[in-house]
């Protein structure tokens, strides 16, 4: 099927969301709470676009593109005056919530907003409440962290605000966070995240510590991975393969040389 975006026609596939097409085609629409790893959520409202269709009798509406499924001949406008104004308002509000976040500052200034018109949050942190971290954690099967509270006081929290018993220290939440809000620290062979400490598995060859015991065990148990898979780290595995490969190549070279000699 085809959909029209800002006057041009693009190919779209059944089951895709409008944002998927926008991203594939490199059309610049900000979207802070959508990520291909998790289900769309519709919280930041930045990805809003205007849609209409020739069969809709002139009806137009604004929808979040991350949640709107494509349909044939859908007509999309990504930068109407109202939508730009909405994005400005959202960014203006986010800048009040997270005045110190470089990512939000940058995005806001792209929309011409350098200082917020609103009252900045006291003791502000960099969490924009996009919910990506909790969703990815759930998607991974851990459910270690969740959204707590409501309204302006909503926050990402661990159960009872203590070290989360179900966390395996996989860092998926850290990596997905668009504002780098979630902190973790690896010191020697321990990792600390969400107030919990993990022992890291050391590579039997190089001694580097890379993955937590809990996460390794989880993967071995649930993802059909050999029990000794994490004994040796990826780097060592790679260099091991390289060494073997080299041997193989050299062995062929040696054979060739021997053949030459014998000839």
């Amino acid at each position, binding site marked *: 099927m085809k959909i029209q975006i800002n006057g041009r026609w693009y190919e779209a596939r059944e089951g895709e969301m409008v944002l998927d097409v926008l991203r594939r085609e490199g059309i610049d629409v900000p979207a802070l709470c959508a990520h291909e790893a998790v289900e769309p*959520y*519709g*919280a930041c409202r930045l990805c809003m676009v205007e849609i209409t269709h020739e069969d809709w009798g002139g009806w137009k509406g*604004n929808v979040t593109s991350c949640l709107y499924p494509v349909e044939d001949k859908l007509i999309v406008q990504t930068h109407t005056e109202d939508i730009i104004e909405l994005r400005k308002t*959202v960014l203006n509000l*986010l800048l009040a919530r997270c005045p110190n976040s470089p990512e939000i500052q940058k995005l806001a200034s792209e929309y011409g907003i350098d200082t917020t018109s609103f*009252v900045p949050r006291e003791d502000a942190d960099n969490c924009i*409440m996009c919910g990506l971290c909790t969703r990815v954690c759930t998607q991974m099967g851990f459910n270690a962290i969740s959204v707590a509270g409501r309204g*302006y006081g909503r926050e990402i929290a661990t159960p009872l605000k203590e070290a989360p018993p179900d966390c395996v220290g996989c860092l998926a939440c850290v990596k997905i966070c668009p504002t780098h809000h979630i902190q973790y620290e690896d010191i020697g062979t321990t990792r600390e995240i969400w107030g919990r400490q993990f022992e890291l598995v050391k590579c039997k060859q190089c001694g580097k510590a890379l993955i937590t015991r809990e996460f390794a065990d989880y993967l071995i148990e649930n993802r059909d991975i050999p029990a000794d898979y994490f004994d040796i780290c990826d780097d060592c595995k790679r260099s091991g393969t390289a060494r073997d490969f080299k041997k193989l190549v050299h062995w062929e070279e040696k054979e060739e040389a021997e053949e030459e000699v014998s000839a």
Partner: protein
Amino acid sequence: MKIDSPDKLNAWKEECLQKDAKLKKKVMVCFGPGCLAAGCREIYAKFEEILAERKLGDITLESFKKTGCHGLCEKGPLVVIEPEGIFYNRVRTSQVKDIVEKTLAKGEIIERLLYKNPKTKERVLKYHDIDFYKKQTRLALRNLGHIDPDNIEDYVMRDGYQSVAKVLTGMTPEEVIDEVKLSGIRGRGGGGFPAGRKWATCRGVESDVRYVICNGDEGDPGAFMDRSIMEGDPHSVLEGMIVASYAVGARDAYIYVREEYPLAVQHLYQAIDDAKEHGFLGENIMGTDFSLDIHISRGGGAFVCGESSALMKSVAGEVGEPRAKYIHSVVKGLWDKPTVLNNVETFANIPLIMNKGGDWFRSIGTEKSTGTKAFSLVGKVENTGLIEVPMGTTLREIIYDIGGGIKDGRKFKAVQTGGPSGGCLPEDKLDLPVDFDTLTKAGSMMGSGGMIVMDDHTCMVDVAKYFLKFLVDESCGKDVPCREGLYQLHKMVVKVTEGKASEADLQLMEHLSKYIIMGSLCGLGKSGPNPFLSTVRYFRDEYLAHIIDKKCPGGVCRDLIRFEINDKCTGCTACIAPCPVDAITGEKDKIHILDQEKCTKCGACYAVCQFDAIDII
């Protein structure tokens, strides 16, 4: 006893009527929310106590009924004596003996217990002669106050379950839907969506399973229509749901009841048990192959749980948080199955529509808003309580005829309809007919039926502040415009009440409001700025008075007012003690002095002064 045919139902109804006719007198003690708060349990216990000691001829304990809300909650506890319809209000336990000895034993009327018309100051003997009731048309509330909600026989006697018999044995689901469409009934929970169309869509979706849900979340502060129906006439809700389930093809239905309504839950459970026992629920209802179970689901406790997508998540056991609905829940609702969600009051109307026909229903109300609407009328009116009027009744009729006008002879200022995210309408809108479209056009909304009347001692900016605060606290916080936007909007309204806002702020507030509405995910955010927008639309001068003149015309905003003692002061000393900070000094019979430095503007002195000697400036 299983009722498995219309004939059996009619025979049972006849039996119940005869049994009832044997009761020479009935004493209806109101157990509605208002009367419960006013102490009706003690009244009832007192009757029991006296009856245990004293024989009263034909009148036995069976003659005493705990009923649902009579409506005139302001005047509770209420006791109505049938068949005469003698209406006693503000009954105290010490007066119960008198009621028994005089009225029940000798038929004497106790004057001082009768309702007093606030205008004419005359006592009114009978229920239906009270202005409050005269102008009402009670359809959804038809049984409230007339039956014991825990007694299915009371319900059957008043045509209960007739529509189930009629529909199941004589109508196809399509015919039921057509009748509902014909009636024109629109959802009573806020949105006003035509119920017939919703049912038809649901039935039309290809699916092996469909659900029906009743929305009894009623999160609006101060509203108690749905609560009163669930508590006072639970069978009417079940009956409506049975018809709906038959029409759309549901095998299971749910009632989602607000956590804070334990009595409603109790009565609904009782009603479900009784309905099951008599074959109105369960397998093969009315001897047909239609079967249905109704389950109760306790609410998640948050206002936003009343929103359809959040409610369905909550019923399914997940966190009640709205989701974007580009696929409507009629198509993909509870557990992703086609689902009809309707409000308590909507369901309570269905049996009447089935029994009397869609044409009859649409003859009441206006063309586009048919039937009646229940409201909880509260605030500065003489008669507060639960009312029901035909759609199209004017605000003036509701406030002045039914409500008895503004309390204490003050002046009307505004009426707020539509719950927390509704709007405030000024005096020149009083002649507007109350229907879905007119209210929306005027910048307010029908909502689920809250109606708050305000007098001239109200500050409209303060009102906006109050409702916005409620919404800020109740926003689930998922999306940015609602979570951050309403928070900032509330902050700015507070700034106005402190006299610190500028005209530029006012513009920013209007701009922000527009994009909160456009950007929010669910109805809460989409209507969230309404308290501000409707007050600024009709009372802009009042905002400007705060901003430019630094004055609060309503005399409410503490930072902008000052209390002063004028020369009407008689030196009565009444205001000296109530002042918590000892700001008032003075000798008896001499004009008192108020120390502005000390005064915290709490208004305690103003409240006690009998001589109008304290001005708010």
